């Protein structure tokens, strides 16, 4: 645990592997959130005039 992380270095970009993993996981979670079906319940509700304007 108490060892420095491995870093990726490309030109001026310097980033640790754990940070790369976190960012990659965030991308994956974001894509899943866009495409995964959301469990629904109840009936559709009409947005009220003026409420969302």
């Amino acid at each position, binding site marked *: 645990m108490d060892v420095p992380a491995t870093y990726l270095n490309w030109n001026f970009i310097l980033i640790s592997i754990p940070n790369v993993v976190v960012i990659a996981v*965030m991308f994956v979670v*974001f894509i899943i*959130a*866009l495409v995964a079906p959301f469990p*629904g319940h109840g*009936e559709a509700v009409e947005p009220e005039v003026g409420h969302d304007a």
Partner: protein
Amino acid sequence: MRDVNSAPQAEPSSWTLAIRHFLQRRLPLRHLLPDRQPVFVGSWVYIFGVVAIAGLVWVTGSGIALAFFGPQWWHQSGIGRFVNSVHLWSVQVFFVSMVLHLWGQYFMASWRDGRAKTWMVGVVIFAFSIVAAFTGFISQQNFDGQWIAVNAKDATNASGVGSFFNVLNFGQMYGLHIALLPMLVVTLVVIHIVLVRMHGVVRPIEKKQTERPSTEERAS
């Protein structure tokens, strides 16, 4: 003396009455505490903001315990180390979900239809959260905190803020971290949520303002 049987008089003006009328007009209870949402809210993209709030609740709760018991407790006792870890990891949850929420709202252009204030308050929350997290790393009371502070000193000096924002001054950093910044972030989050309640959730870009959601569509 006024005759009570005479024609009704205009209500006397006062700031409490003005605020009450404003709230009744702009934030009625059915908007503040809605039981149903438009059909397009039925998407996981809308979950990230709620997860960020949950993370903030855990950050605040664990932070209160850490502030109460102090550095010796959070470094040397088992339960203290656990609460310290909860504080760290709930910050990770808070930031990850806040950035995912930001991505979602950015690609939906959520500042549309009079929601610019909501968007801008969110941006300010993000900025203050970064400062809050930074002062937290400096307040760890270990070599990691010292290392971050000494390295950050060069950056703050180079940017010109080093004279009044001294990262080597533990008292200043700790005070900002546990008092001013949490109050700012929590207050701004409350304002952000109230603004969302006032204006409602933005419609998807492909839906026109006049378009009515189909009854066959799923509701959230």
